[in-house]
């Protein structure tokens, strides 16, 4: 077959038919899967917006009071929140960020160890919620942090409140 033959209408027609073909069909559950994926994505987007708002608001609120250590605390918590999000804990991530913001605002105790996880940091929680588990500038136990995470997750618009085991899991991840 020479080049002249290659350009016959018949060959062009066959090639065009191959190019135009749609040989595969979407599986029956495809649309439902897409809608579910979109629902999850919208949920995640809502959390992202919430987190961004919280994060962006804090430096404006008390810029001069933010010590280097407090900023490190926030950045560390952001990294932890991202880790939480990667493992699919959007609500926990939101709560973690909110907790971080609350900690950073006014509650970092300078007498606490230099490289704290969240647990050793002394905080007052009354600003964030009306929790009677923690008051004033008390050192916060893991249990108190867990309840605070749950309360924060309940308070966040659009977030599913955390269950206790989810909050514990979130704390464990945050403390790594």
């Amino acid at each position, binding site marked *: 077959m020479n080049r002249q033959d290659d350009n016959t209408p018949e060959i062009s027609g066959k*090639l065009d038919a*191959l190019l135009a073909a749609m*040989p*595969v069909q979407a599986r029956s559950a*495809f*649309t439902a899967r897409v809608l579910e994926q979109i629902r999850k*994505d*919208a949920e995640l987007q809502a959390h992202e917006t919430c987190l961004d708002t919280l994060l962006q608001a804090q430096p404006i609120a008390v810029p001069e009071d933010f010590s280097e250590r407090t900023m490190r605390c926030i950045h560390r918590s952001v990294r932890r929140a991202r880790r939480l999000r990667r493992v699919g804990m959007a609500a926990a991530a939101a709560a973690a960020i909110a907790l971080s913001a609350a900690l950073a605002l006014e509650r970092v105790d300078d007498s606490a160890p230099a490289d704290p996880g969240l647990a050793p940091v002394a905080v007052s929680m009354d600003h964030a919620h009306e929790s009677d588990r923690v008051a004033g500038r008390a050192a916060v136990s893991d249990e108190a942090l867990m309840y605070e995470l749950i309360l924060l997750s309940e308070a966040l618009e659009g977030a599913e409140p955390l269950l206790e085991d989810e909050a514990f899991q979130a704390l464990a991840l945050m403390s790594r």
Partner: protein
Amino acid sequence: MADSPSRTTDREIDIDAALMLKVGRGDDAALAMLIERWKTPLINFFYRSLGSYEEAEELAMTVFVRVHRAAPRYRPTAKFSTYLFQIARRLLINAYRKHQRKPLQLVDPAELHAVDSDDSVMRSMEIEESFHHALAGLPENQRTALLLYKQQELSYAEIAEVLGSSESAVKTWIFRGRQTLRELLRDLL
């Protein structure tokens, strides 16, 4: 595929744009309708580009997620198909980058359907597989331009918009792509 926009007319442009505007206002039924209309063209575009049905479905899904995210900001300044395939092409280029680290695994569409293994079926499977390989060997701009022109029936101007190039460049890519495919497939066609 009665609901799929095989040849986009002005009326269909209005339908897609109207659906998209409704999606932007949170209308889930409009979203489902948009997905129904475009899922087959999108999956086939990705399937022909990548040779993987699974990946084609995943990418089509991602396109719809992106479309949903962008819906509140959507303004019908161009044909919906142009808008849709701009998103699809960006995702496709990302997929190609991933494939540079992992070779293509072509899947014959016959594997997705029950088929009889008579001679004519074997022959069409052979043509299909060779076509896939030949298409995969084209430069990305030629392959995408050809598919948008022939499979998705976009105009030269629309393809130029999707690819961010001139119409004359698109015509050249399509011409060269077809010539290469003819060369590669001449013994089979």
